């Protein structure tokens, strides 16, 4: 018992020393107490002299080499280099919503005008929006918006339809496959569009779909893709970072073709990737930054830029043997792409039961 008391006393002593050192060390800041508010005051003062640039922070949930985060970062970076925004990047967010809310709160408190929560962080964004009505936030994926919280959609099902058309044209086994982390509406719509597109060019195709249950386990993604290949699928697509990367590794060096997800993944398997369905965040972030600057952000909208506005696209891989894609398919895809762009054809959106 005495030993425990000693340990506790030691702990308190350390804590006391730490607080004293902290208090002493703070004297150059003009007195301790409320360090948080000092920082806020400092940066708030700084934000008004931004020179017309919108003070923007982007919170990334994954490493920058992951396509999702790479695309978000690239778009933000481009806006920064154009002088539209002043960018702060927060790498690697905590796992739980409470932690994310804290991060967003810190950013808002630090004077950020536009906070891009680049993941499906609806609740933390809304919560932070309520606490900091002066800041503007946005999160990815559809959901509830509020006065100062917007969301940005990912109509990736549109280019998925085009990818499906190509798949129908190049498959030799008439079996194609799609893997996803989970059957959420986003992925459901993507896989259904892929299937419908394939059926349009090849009514005989059969589509396999598998869910790995984890958005982060690449090994499982590869396992799932391999399983589909064993079941004769020879064109694959995926939804989610780990499924996509696993798929790319699974098809490399085989006769199976595939499509990358969100970013251009052709480099991972140049011979096998027919292309990638791209999510381009530049128009989204630009629209948001402009709205903040013009004071038109409220009420928060659901930003959606489809194929027509270059928010999403199908990027074909020039290295993928052109001979593999029949000319008739290529021109058909061109035609449909044009139809989607001018609005005469709408890709069916099936979100699932």
């Amino acid at each position, binding site marked *: 018992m005495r*030993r*425990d008391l*000693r*340990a*506790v006393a*030691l*702990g308190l002593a*350390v804590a006391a020393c*730490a*607080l004293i050192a*902290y208090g002493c*060390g*703070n004297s150059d800041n003009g007195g301790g107490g*409320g*360090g*948080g*508010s000092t*920082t806020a005051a400092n940066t708030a003062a700084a934000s008004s002299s931004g020179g017309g640039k919108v003070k923007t922070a982007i919170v990334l949930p994954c490493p920058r080499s992951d396509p999702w985060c790479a695309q978000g970062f690239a778009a933000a970076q481009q806006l920064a280099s154009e002088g539209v925004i002043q960018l*702060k990047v*927060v*790498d*690697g*967010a*905590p*796992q*739980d*919503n*409470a*932690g994310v809310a*804290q*991060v967003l*709160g*810190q*950013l808002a408190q*630090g004077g950020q005008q536009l906070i891009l929560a680049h993941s*499906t962080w*609806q*609740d933390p964004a809304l919560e932070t929006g309520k606490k900091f009505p002066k800041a503007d936030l946005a999160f*990815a*994926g*559809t*959901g509830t918006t509020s006065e100062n919280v917007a969301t940005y*959609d*990912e109509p990736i099902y549109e280019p998925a339809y085009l990818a499906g058309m190509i798949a129908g044209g190049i498959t030799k086994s008439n079996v194609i496959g799609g893997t996803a982390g*989970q*059957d*959420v*509406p*986003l992925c459901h*719509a993507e896989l259904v569009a892929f299937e419908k597109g394939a059926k349009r060019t090849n009514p005989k195709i059969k589509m396999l779909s598998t869910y790995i*249950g984890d958005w982060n386990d690449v090994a499982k993604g590869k396992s799932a893709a391999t399983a589909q290949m064993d079941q004769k699928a020879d064109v694959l697509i995926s939804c989610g970072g780990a499924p996509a990367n696993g798929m790319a590794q699974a098809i490399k060096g085989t006769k199976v073709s595939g499509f990358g997800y969100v970013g251009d993944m052709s480099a991972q398997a140049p011979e096998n990737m027919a292309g990638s369905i791209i999510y381009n965040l530049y128009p989204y972030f630009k629209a948001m930054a402009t709205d903040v600057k013009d004071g038109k952000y409220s009420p928060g909208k659901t930003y959606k830029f489809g194929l027509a506005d270059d928010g999403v696209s199908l990027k074909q891989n020039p290295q993928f043997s052109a001979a593999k894609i029949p000319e008739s398919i290529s021109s058909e895809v061109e035609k449909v792409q044009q139809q989607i762009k001018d609005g005469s054809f709408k890709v069916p959106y099936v*979100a699932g039961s």
Partner: protein
Amino acid sequence: MSTVAQPRTFASPLAGRHAQLRSIGSSLAAVILALILGGALMAIAGGDPISGYRAMIDGVFGTPYGMGQALILAAPLTIIGLGLALAFKGRVYNIGAEGQFLMGALGAGAVAIVVPIHAGALLVLLAILAGILAGVFWGGIVGVLRARFGVNEVITSLLLTYIAGFIFSWSIRDPFHAPGVSGLQGKAVPENTIFPTFTSLYVHPGVFAAIALVPIVAYLMARTPFGFRVRMLGLNADAAEVAGVPRGRMVVWLMVVSGGLAGLAGAIQIFGVADRLDPSISAGYGFTAIVVALLGRLRAFGVLLAALFFAVLQSGGQAMSVNEDLPYAIVLAIEGTFVVFLLIADRLARR
């Protein structure tokens, strides 16, 4: 974890005083070493150690809101930790608290969403009860398997945690999916069931519940026949059985109590923090609580202190990573370092 009797050393009083000073000195050295290593990690990540630590302390103690956030984080750790402390004391190694937590959250959320009662307070109480029962059930399975069939509870509780995760995942994808959301998100619970926040710290009632449980569990462990039997079981299970302690039943009780407490923590998270069935309702609280229970030396107040320590470390770390432009990953590494050195310091102080 073993309570080892130290051999008596007969030495002069002055030598005793020296020994005390030496042990305090060496544990202080361990703490300082921890701070230095943590600072080195910050420097490697491109930050400044001094301002990094300052940001950590600021993030938690600088504003009432920050303090409240730390308390909110400490609440589930405390509640689950209390249950685990009890179980571990009786040598029942419940590694599946995470799964019991999820089932508790699911049970509470489901009841709140489905049951057509309009009185908020009543609905919440019912839902929390459901959450506790869900945790009781999930933990009870493990207990029965061990008591009745002798199956190792470490592996069963761990495997059941994965299974609980899948059940939870399915329910927010299908029956309780939030309408109109393109990602994985569950339905929100009714407005009138969400916990209000109190004081300028913005804490919810769950925090008070956690603190209130501490003396209750302490009393349970130290002053009741149940607690006595738990301790006997932990010291020497065979001797305890000879002395009349119903081993099998105690194992089930311990799993049920720790499971129920984990379920309670899950239910509280739903109404206090998440406000809906959400995939990220837990940041591994069930596993962190194991460390908390052990750091707290399986004692109720120790668990509270350890939970607070962790919460401050985690909260402060998050604040630091944002304000100092450091990637959040380095916070995990710093946490690991601190935990290790805290252990070393504790060991040295006790010698």
